[in-house]
């Protein structure tokens, strides 16, 4: 086999975020997250359901970026019905973040003053509702002090500090499972609910990650080795889910 590439490491890191989820809507947004989600369902989380990114739940493993691929349709899931799933809590989304801070506050909306932004971005989108209803994982393909910031300009998806004073229902539903970047994997599994380093990707050092992060990262005594893709996973990524290598685009090649 060809040596494992960074995009494949990231896809597996995202797939791992879904481990243990069972029969829910696995709803990753963007090429690398979709590859990770489809990989998880094709291997260790077969009970999850996934959309074709248009309007149905497809039971088969679809290749990314192929609108004509044959779907094994198991349900109709038009856009409006997604919200019934969001509000039911039976969903785990992977979203991007233009900015993210130590407490997991995410900005997708705007850079600068939101009243007259320097850059209007995607907007709040579904982030406010997602975060207070079900599990969320973030994917940041360009880890730097511009994306991992002390304070986000607009909070689209609220982090742990923002929900701490809210109702029990909100606090119970709110979970930022993981943050996966092109440098490593992070979670909030400490008493302070601050972002901590779980693992660094191959050929990346802890110092590099700390330097590229604009806030104080919790770094434990033990930063574990990432789980690398198995041969079966590499086959699925390269031959089945992304045969045309669309995932490479996010990694600047």
């Amino acid at each position, binding site marked *: 086999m060809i040596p494992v590439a960074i995009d494949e490491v990231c896809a597996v890191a995202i797939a791992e975020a879904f481990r243990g989820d069972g029969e829910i809507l696995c709803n990753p947004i963007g090429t690398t997250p979709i590859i990770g989600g489809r990989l998880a369902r094709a291997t260790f989380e077969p009970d999850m359901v996934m959309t074709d990114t*248009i*309007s*149905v739940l497809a039971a088969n493993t679809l290749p990314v970026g192929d609108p004509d691929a044959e779907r094994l349709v198991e349900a109709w899931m*038009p*856009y*409006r019905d997604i*919200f019934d799933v*969001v*509000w039911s809590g039976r969903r785990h989304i992977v979203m991007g973040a233009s900015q993210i801070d130590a407490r997991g506050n995410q900005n997708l*909306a*705007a850079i600068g003053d*939101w*009243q*007259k*932004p*320097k*850059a*209007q*971005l*995607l*907007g*709040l*989108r*579904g*982030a*406010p*509702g997602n*975060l*207070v*209803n079900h599990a969320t994982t973030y994917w940041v393909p360009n880890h730097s002090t511009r994306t991992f910031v002390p304070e986000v300009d*607009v*909070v*689209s*998806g*609220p982090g742990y500090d*923002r*929900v701490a004073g*809210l*109702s*029990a*229902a*909100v606090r119970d*539903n*709110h979970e930022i499972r993981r943050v996966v970047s092109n440098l490593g994997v992070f979670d909030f599994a400490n008493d302070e609910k601050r972002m901590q380093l779980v693992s660094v990707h191959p050929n990346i050092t802890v110092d590099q990650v700390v330097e590229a992060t604009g806030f104080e990262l919790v770094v434990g005594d033990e930063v574990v080795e990432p789980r690398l893709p198995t041969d079966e996973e590499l086959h699925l990524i390269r031959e089945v889910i992304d045969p045309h290598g669309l995932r490479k685009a996010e990694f600047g090649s």
Partner: protein
Amino acid sequence: MTEDDVVAELASGMTIGIGGWGSRRKPMSLVRAIARSNLEDLTIVTYGGPDVGVLCALGKVRRAVYGFVSLDSIPLEPHFRNARQQATIEFTELDEGAFYLGLLAAAHRVPFYPTRAGLGSDMLTMNPELRTVASPYPDEGGDHEELVAIPAFCLDAALVHMNRADAAGNGQFLGPDLYFDDLFAKAASRTYLSCEKVVPTENLLDEGTVHTLKIPRIFVDGVVEAPRGAHFTECPPDYGRDEAFQREYAATARDPEAWEAFREYYVEAPGHDEYLARVDARSDEKSES
């Protein structure tokens, strides 16, 4: 009716809901009729695409109320982006699901629907007019949960584009998703429905099952037959998105001269037939070169 007949029933200052979603099944022939009219000072309520972009670029919009604004294959609507970055419009930006509840509340004639969406995020900061409401029912811990009250989006008029309709206003979608077009119709005092083709009532089941007849005529006040009326947005199964045309439209956001030319030639073409003729002439030119 014609597109211009519809516009004659609208007025400046109105709140107008526009169906479709992003760059999908937008009633663009009606949007262009507004573009070439004297209407101004409009509040546009939409899961936005080029409808918002075009009307913002023409200065028709006082306020945009939206769950998002996107061209799908081009994630950021560039003309809307200009309007936001130059602060030429007021805006109400809501969570995508919260936006749905505003339509639903208007359709059901209740003042609001409650949701958790927005709690903890800057949705409440960005929209200081939004209020929260305490549940009248205690939860298991005896607390009365605080929820966001999404106000009803009462629309003076709604514009939607369907694949088929009969002359009485029964609308039919034949694509994979109705989006919220039925709710737009129900949330509005008056609804104008354009369609690819007007068919006799007895032919409404020729191309789709009964499940596709989601907009009954009691919620529709006028029908416009507009073949390719959603162009350049998609309208499956009748046609897909005209990506080349959309790219040309998007590129004009960076070049005021190009926008002036595009506006004059396409957006303000004197009628839908003339617009289509100009679009087709453009495609012929491209295929010859």
